[in-house]
């Protein structure tokens, strides 16, 4: 690695980097600190306390919503990872097949499509199909959105993979499917894991699409947080948010450890 010397960074560079990162992290740090505030008034410091956490664990409705969100996130992330990986393989290894342009268009568009449109269109579909709205409709909606992210993550890894590795496997007696399973799959596994993580956190985060596609009595955690937040800041929400952040942190750490174990030395385990 030929890093350029640090001295080439100007003061302006250092300042912009520091300010940029502070801007990204300070609000989150403040939120976490305030979640341990004993005072009911959110802005007055009343000493350290776990009061708001215990309140959350006694709030039946919030706990139900959290459980619902976790199930939706786990199931949709798993579905999305399977479908997204298949799509990435089709896009990066397929020659032109019929409707390839439409296929890639359908996979890239949801990445930037306003969520209100995606949510509305899926709801109208579910209504037309007369599907009962709840766990499965939200899960399907989240799978649709997140599999596109998985596709992009896995496809970029596949694109960087040396094609001659697959050729070597076939040269040594693998049929194309076997070559994929024994050589390609182990090498793209880190990106598949990263794709799952991304899908999981995106699902855990979504308010808009879930609001459209869920039914009465099956609100997800973000929907509940959102409706509470609209009414103003509550210390309990700080605690819930901190717990969600902790969960996401655990997922990221676990997945990057798994990535490190499965990837070969020297390969970066960056999740995107």
């Amino acid at each position, binding site marked *: 690695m030929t890093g350029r010397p640090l001295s080439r960074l100007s003061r302006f560079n250092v300042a912009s980097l520091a300010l940029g990162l502070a801007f990204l992290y300070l609000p989150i740090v403040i939120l976490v600190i305030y979640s341990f505030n004993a005072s009911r008034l959110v802005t007055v410091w009343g000493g350290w306390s776990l009061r708001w956490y215990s309140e959350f664990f006694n709030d039946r409705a919030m706990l139900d919503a959290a459980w619902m969100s976790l199930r939706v996130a786990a199931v949709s992330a798993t579905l999305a990872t399977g479908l997204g990986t298949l799509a990435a393989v089709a896009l990066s290894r397929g020659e032109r097949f019929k409707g390839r342009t439409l296929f890639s268009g359908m996979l890239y568009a949801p990445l930037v499509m306003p969520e209100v449109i995606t949510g509305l269109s899926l709801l109208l579909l579910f209504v037309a199909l007369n599907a009962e709205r709840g766990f499965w409709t939200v899960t399907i909606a989240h799978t649709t959105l997140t599999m596109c992210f998985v596709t992009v993550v896995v496809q970029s890894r596949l694109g960087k993979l*040396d094609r*001659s*590795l697959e*050729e*070597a*496997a*076939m*040269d*040594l*007696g*693998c*049929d*194309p499917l*076997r*070559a994929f399973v*024994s*050589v390609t799959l*182990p*090498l793209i596994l880190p990106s598949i894991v990263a794709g799952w993580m991304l899908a999981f956190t995106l699902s855990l985060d979504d308010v808009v699409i879930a609001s459209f596609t869920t039914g009465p009595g099956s609100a997800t955690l973000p929907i509940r947080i959102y409706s509470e937040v609209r009414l103003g800041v509550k210390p309990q929400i700080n605690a819930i948010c901190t717990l969600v952040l902790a969960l996401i942190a655990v997922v990221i750490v676990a997945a990057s450890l798994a990535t490190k174990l499965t990837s*070969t*030395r*020297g*390969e970066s385990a960056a999740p995107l």
Partner: protein
Amino acid sequence: MAEELATSEPPSEPLAAPARPAPVADDIPLLRIDAVVKQFGGFRAVDRLSLDIGAGEFFALLGPSGCGKTTLLRMLAGFETPDEGQILLDGWDIGKLLPHERPVNMMFQNYALFPHLSVRDNIAFGLKRAGMAASDIVARVAEMVALVKLDGLEKRKPDQLSGGQKQRVALARALARRPRILLLDEPLAALDKKLRESTQAELMALQRRLGTTFIVVTHDQDEAMTMADRIGVMDKGRLEQVATPRQLYEAPASRWVAEFVGDINLFEGQIEPRDSRLAMAPRLTVTTRDAGTVYVAEPRQPVTRTSVCVAIRPEKVKLSRYGPAPNTDNAQAINRLEGVVTDVSYLGGTTTYRVKLDSGAVLRSSMANTARIDIDAYSPTHRVVAWFTPDDCLVLEQ
């Protein structure tokens, strides 16, 4: 062990791909490429190319980049399929088979070692696919590791190996299945010069020991000349010439081959009608614009055109201040050209001179530095006589 390998039978049963018919006759070459065409879009990468390669041969495909040599190699491996023509292995058409169905293995240019597998697992990869028994695999891997001298590195991952070691693993992996033909795509391109030379010698020794047919693709003519029994020179999807290294250098089939392989002086001219006074000597008289009259030994094949090109390798051109001494056996060195030395390049083993002839054309001469102190060295502005025998030059028609 070497003998064992050399005498070992062709691939044992599990390794042999689908049943193939027995050779029909003895005169069928191991590999016959018959009028093969490969197009990419409108571009003909390989253009009606035919070639026979015999069992146990070390064959090199040489050519500039984009000449189609790699495409040809990939068609032999099965990564590309010919649009037209046949590829026959022992008389059996393998042109449409998938790579894993062919008893042919390839050593990739960048080695393509599986980064997630150890050296041992890389070498065993093809054996496992062939359904070999576990104990046989262990034995074969050990044999291969010893063959390419990788002992002690079996457990390493590819990124813990040096460039030379990676090259050996790639070689062992490709040879482990005992292929009928080993294809090598620029096998030494990633190695530095010193390592390349020793590896060339090792590859040759290995090939001789195993008796496996090697087909190597390279753009490096020294490499091809050093290693190969025969060389096929390719340009624009066609074979320009297939010959031994010596033939290729001393008797190039065309002007293109003569210029591509090594260095050469070329003079265009017209063949004169036979002169009765010289009727005894089997030679042609060519009148060139730049080098005057040049006498050339009569080629074996009769020349059909009168407009030709006279070619002389620089090391065949001798320089002296006064021309060849009349009392030496150079008496027949009747080609004499006069000029002025313009450039001298000292290259260690040889020195090359550029001589500006009186006609204005430039002639290159290369002379071996056989003595440490050369009293005969020429410097720019020296007037010299350049001379060469009719046997040292040839006429090229194209």
